[in-house]
C-alpha cells in the first residue's frame, strides 16, 4: 500500500465531525472506526464498493475500474440510482486485467490506453479511475496515470484509490468523497450563484427519491447547485464550493466532505432526513433558516412554513384512510444507524408499533433519539444473526420486517412480510409523497392474503400449532460478531 493511501485512510478514520468517533475515549479514537472483520463471519462490501456507491450516481462520468474482471464484472449495473440525463454512469468500464497483464506489469499502460479509449468512445464529462486490491498490490500508480492522461486528453481524469482490503464500504464512501474534494470541488464556477443555492450530499435518488423532494425546493426557489447525490452531473460536484448551505442526508459516511466544505469555503452544513413527515418538515425548516442566516430573503421562512402546513395537511389527509390498515401492526426494523430514528419516528406517526430496532452503526446520539421516541431501550438491539431473526419472525413475534435486501430472505422464508428500506428498493419513499407511498407499500405487503395461505399447513401436515407470540426483550438478544450490515 502506498504511503499516500495509508495517510489518507488514517485521516479518514480521524474524522472530528464523526459523532461515533467523537463519543469515544481518546485511546479508542486513534484506532479509527474500522471494525476488524472476522474471517468466516463477515459480510458487506469493501472500500471499493463503498466508493462506487458514493460516486457512481454522478451520471455523466465514465467510471473505469482498474482491476481484474471480478470487481466490476460482478458488480456493475446493480443499483437503482436514477438519472434524468446521461446514462453513461450505468455502463460498466474496466481494464479487465488478465494474468498476462499482471505478470508483464502492463497495468499502468493498459489503464492509460483504457482512459484514452473511453474518452474517444463515450465523450464523458470526466473519467473516474478506481484502483482495487490487485492493482494496489502490484503497485500501479494510478495517480500518475490519471494526471498524465488528463493532461494529454484535456479531460478531467480523477484517481480514486480504494483497494478493497483496506476496509469497509463505509471507509470507501469516505475515500470516494475525499477524492472529490481533492480533485473536483472548486474546479468549475456557476454562471449565476444565488443566495438560495444548496448542496445535497448522500441521497442516492433511488427510484427517484430526490425527485420527490425537489418539487418542494422548486416551490421555495431553492436550487440544488452542488450535489454528491443521485442524478448529479460532474459540474455539480465541481461547483459545490459555491453553495450557501450543505444538507447531508446520510450522515456517517459523508460528514468529512461536509465539514471540509465548511472549513475551506465557509459553507455550513446540517444533517437531515427526508423519511417521514416530521423529519422532512424539520429538514426544510433548518435548510431555510440556514439560508436566511446566510443572506437569503427572510420571507423564505414564511414561505417554508406555508409549504410545510400545506404539505403536511395534504399528507395527513392522504394517510387517514390508510392508517387503519397498518395501525397496531408490529414492525421489526433492521437498518443502518442514521435511518433508524428517522424511520422509527415516521412509523410511530402512523400508529405502527416498532417491536424492535437494530442499532448497528448508530451513534450514542442516534441511540438517545430512539430512546426518546420509543420511551426506553428495551426494543433496541445490535446485530441479530439470521438464524435468530428467522426464529423470531417464524414465531410471529413481528408482523413485518423492514430492512435492506440482505435480510429479505430471512423474513420471506419465515413467511413474514418484508419491506425494503434500502438501496435495492424499487419504490421511492422520500418526503411527504414518499410517506404515502411507504404506507401504501406496508399496507399492500402486510395485508396481502398470500401470507395466510402460505402459513396454512400442507394437506399432508397436521394443523399448525397455535403458538401465541411470547413477548421478548430484544435488548436481551445476544449480539452476533457477524456484521449483517445493509447500508
Amino acid at each position, binding site marked *: 500500500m502506498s504511503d499516500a493511501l495509508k495517510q489518507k485512510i488514517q485521516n479518514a478514520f480521524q474524522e472530528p465531525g464523526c459523532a461515533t468517533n467523537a463519543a469515544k475515549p481518546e485511546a479508542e479514537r486513534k484506532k479509527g472506526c474500522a471494525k476488524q472483520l472476522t474471517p468466516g463471519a463477515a459480510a458487506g462490501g469493501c472500500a471499493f464498493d463503498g466508493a462506487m456507491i458514493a460516486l457512481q450516481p454522478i451520471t455523466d462520468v465514465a467510471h473505469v475500474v482498474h482491476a481484474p474482471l471480478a470487481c466490476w464484472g460482478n458488480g456493475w449495473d446493480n443499483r437503482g440510482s436514477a438519472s434524468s*440525463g446521461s446514462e453513461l454512469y450505468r455502463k460498466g468500464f474496466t481494464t479487465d486485467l488478465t494474468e498476462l497483464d499482471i505478470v508483464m506489469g502492463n497495468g499502468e499502460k493498459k489503464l492509460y490506453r483504457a482512459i484514452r479509449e473511453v474518452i474517444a468512445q463515450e465523450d464523458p464529462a470526466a473519467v473516474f479511475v478506481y484502483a482495487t486490491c490487485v492493482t494496489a498490490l502490484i503497485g500501479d500508480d494510478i495517480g500518475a496515470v490519471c494526471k498524465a492522461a488528463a493532461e494529454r486528453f484535456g479531460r478531467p481524469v480523477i484517481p480514486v484509490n480504494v483497494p478493497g482490503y483496506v476496509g469497509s464500504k463505509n471507509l470507501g464512501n469516505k475515500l470516494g468523497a475525499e477524492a472529490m474534494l481533492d480533485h473536483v470541488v472548486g474546479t468549475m464556477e456557476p454562471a449565476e450563484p444565488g443566495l438560495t443555492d444548496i448542496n445535497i450530499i448522500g441521497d442516492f435518488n433511488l427510484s427517484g427519491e430526490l425527485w420527490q423532494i425537489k418539487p418542494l425546493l422548486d416551490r421555495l426557489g431553492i436550487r440544488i447547485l452542488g450535489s454528491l447525490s443521485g442524478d448529479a452531473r460532474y459540474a455539480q460536484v465541481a461547483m459545490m464550493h459555491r453553495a450557501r448551505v450543505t444538507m447531508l442526508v446520510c450522515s456517517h459516511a459523508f460528514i468529512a466532505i461536509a465539514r471540509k466544505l465548511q472549513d475551506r469555503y465557509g459553507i455550513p452544513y446540517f444533517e437531515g432526513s427526508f423519511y417521514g413527515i416530521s423529519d422532512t418538515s424539520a429538514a426544510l425548516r433548518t435548510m431555510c433558516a440556514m439560508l436566511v442566516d446566510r443572506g437569503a430573503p427572510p420571507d423564505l421562512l414564511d414561505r417554508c412554513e406555508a409549504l410545510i402546513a400545506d404539505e403536511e395537511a395534504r399528507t395527513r389527509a392522504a394517510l387517514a384512510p390508510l392508517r387503519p390498515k397498518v395501525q397496531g401492526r408490529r414492525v421489526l426494523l433492521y437498518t443502518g444507524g442514521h435511518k433508524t430514528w428517522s424511520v422509527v419516528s415516521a412509523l410511530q406517526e402512523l400508529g405502527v408499533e416498532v417491536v424492535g430496532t437494530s442499532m448497528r452503526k448508530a451513534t450514542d446520539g442516534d441511540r438517545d433519539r430512539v430512546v426518546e421516541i420509543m420511551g426506553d431501550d428495551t426494543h433496541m438491539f445490535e446485530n441479530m444473526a439470521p438464524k435468530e431473526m428467522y426464529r423470531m419472525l417464524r414465531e410471529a413475534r413481528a408482523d413485518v420486517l423492514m430492512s435492506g435486501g440482505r435480510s429479505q430472505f430471512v423474513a420471506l422464508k419465515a413467511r413474514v412480510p418484508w419491506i425494503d428500506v434500502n438501496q435495492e428498493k424499487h419504490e421511492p419513499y422520500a418526503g411527504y409523497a414518499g410517506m404515502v407511498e411507504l404506507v401504501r407499500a406496508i399496507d399492500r405487503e402486510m395485508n396481502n392474503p398470500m401470507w395466510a*395461505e402460505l402459513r396454512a399447513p400442507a394437506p399432508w401436515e397436521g394443523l399448525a400449532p397455535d403458538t401465541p407470540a411470547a413477548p421478548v426483550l430484544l435488548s436481551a438478544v445476544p449480539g452476533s460478531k457477524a456484521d449483517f450490515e445493509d447500508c
Partner: protein
Amino acid sequence: MARLIHPDRALSTNPLKVSAPLGAAMAYLGIEGAIPLFHGAQGCTAFAMVHMVRHFKEAIPLQTTAMNEVSAILGGGEQIEEAIENLRKRANPKFIGIASTALVETRGEDVAGELREMLSRRTDFADTAVVYAATPDFVGGLEDGWARAVEAIVDALAVPCARREGQVNLLPGAHMTPADVEELAGLIRAFGLDPVILPDLSLSLDGHLADDWRGHSLGGTRLSDIATMAGSIATLAIGDAMRPAAMKLQALGVPAHVVPSVTGLAAVDGLVSLLMTLSGADVPATVRRDRARLADAMLDAHFQIGGLKVALGADPDLGFALGSTLAAMGAELTVVTTTGGAAAERIPADQVIVGDLGDLERAAEAAGARLLLTHSHGRMMAARLHLPHVRAGFPVFDRLGAQDVCRTGYRGTRAFLYEVANAVLSHPHRPAPEDFGAARISSEFDHAASSPSHH
C-alpha cells in the same frame, strides 16, 4: 360473491366469446380417431377451423354438413347422413361428434331424433360412434359447447360397468390446455390412481409430429376406456361447466367431485387432499417438493403481483382459476367474462361484467390496470393501453406453444406466477423528475458533448 353486470348496449365491440360449437369440436378432438362435424353452413366450419388451426398450429379435421339455401329452409337430415357416409369413406373415423349451429337451431329441427332414426337404419355405420350435441351459437360460449359435447359423449357411450378399483374419471374443462391435462394426469398417477380422461387433448393436440397423415384426430380418449367410466371410483370434474357431465356419471354410480379450479396453492391443496382420500396413498416426495417450490415462487412473485391491477377477460372457469390465483396473491381484478353462472360469480372481484373486450378496455382504463390477461384478441387493446399482455384462453394465435402452457397444479401455478411477474418486469417503469412534479435540472450543468481534444 361478485355482482354480475350486464352492460346495456346492443353493439358488441371486439368479441371475447368464442362460439359454443367450436368448444364442442375441440372436445370431440380429444377422442381417438375423431372427426367433429358441424351441422350448419360451411362458413361456420371454416371460421372455427381457421381459429383452431391458428391456435394449435395443427391441421384440424373439422367437417361440415354444408347446409345450403335449400336445406336451410327444408332441413338438413340428409346432409348429416351424406356427411357421415363421406367421412367414413375418406378417413375411416372411429368417432364422429356432431355439433349443431345457430342456423339449425333457429329452425328448431329435431336433429337428435332424426339422427337416432337414421343410425338405426344405417347399420353399416355401426363401427363409427356418432354423437350429437345441441350447441346453438346464440347460447353460451366455448366452455358451454365443450361441456355439452362431453355430456353427449357420456350419454351415448358410458355404459354400466363393474367397479374398477383405482380408476378415476377426469373431466378437464375447456380452459385446460393439453399441457394442463398432462400435468393433472401425472399428479393423479403419482397417487397410484389410474385416470380415464375425457376428453384428452394431451394425446391429440399436444403438437407432435406423427409418422403419417390422417384425416381424423391423432389420438385422444379411447372409446373402450369411455365404456369403463361408469366403473370408476370417482369423477373429478375440473371447472363448474363440467358439473352436468359429472352428474351424468354420478347417475351411473360414480361419485362426482367438482373441483372449481386446479390453479393456486389452496386449490391444488384441495385437489391433493381429495387424491389422498381417494387413493389412501402417501403424498409422493416430488409433489411435496413441487409445493415447496410453489410456496417459494409465491414469495418471489408477490412483490410484482401484490397490489397489481389486472384486467382479466376470460370464460368463467378460466377466469375463476386464474383470477382467484392472482387475487390470492394480492392482485386487484377488473373482470369481464363471456357468460354468467356460478364460476363467474365466484371470481374475487366486486363486480364481473358479462361482456366483450370493448367493455374490458373501458373498465381497464378506468381502473388503471397495469396488466392484461386475456386471449390473443386482447393484443390491440394492450397496445392502445400500453399494458403487458399475458395470453390465456382460446385463441392464442400470435404466440407459439399455447398447447404447452401449463398453469395447473403446483408446478403450473408456479409457472403462471413467474409468467405474470415477468410480464410486469418486462414493462419496467423508469422514473423521471416529471413523475413527481419536479423541474428538470438546468442544462447549465450538462456536459457539453464535444469531440475530445486528443485521440
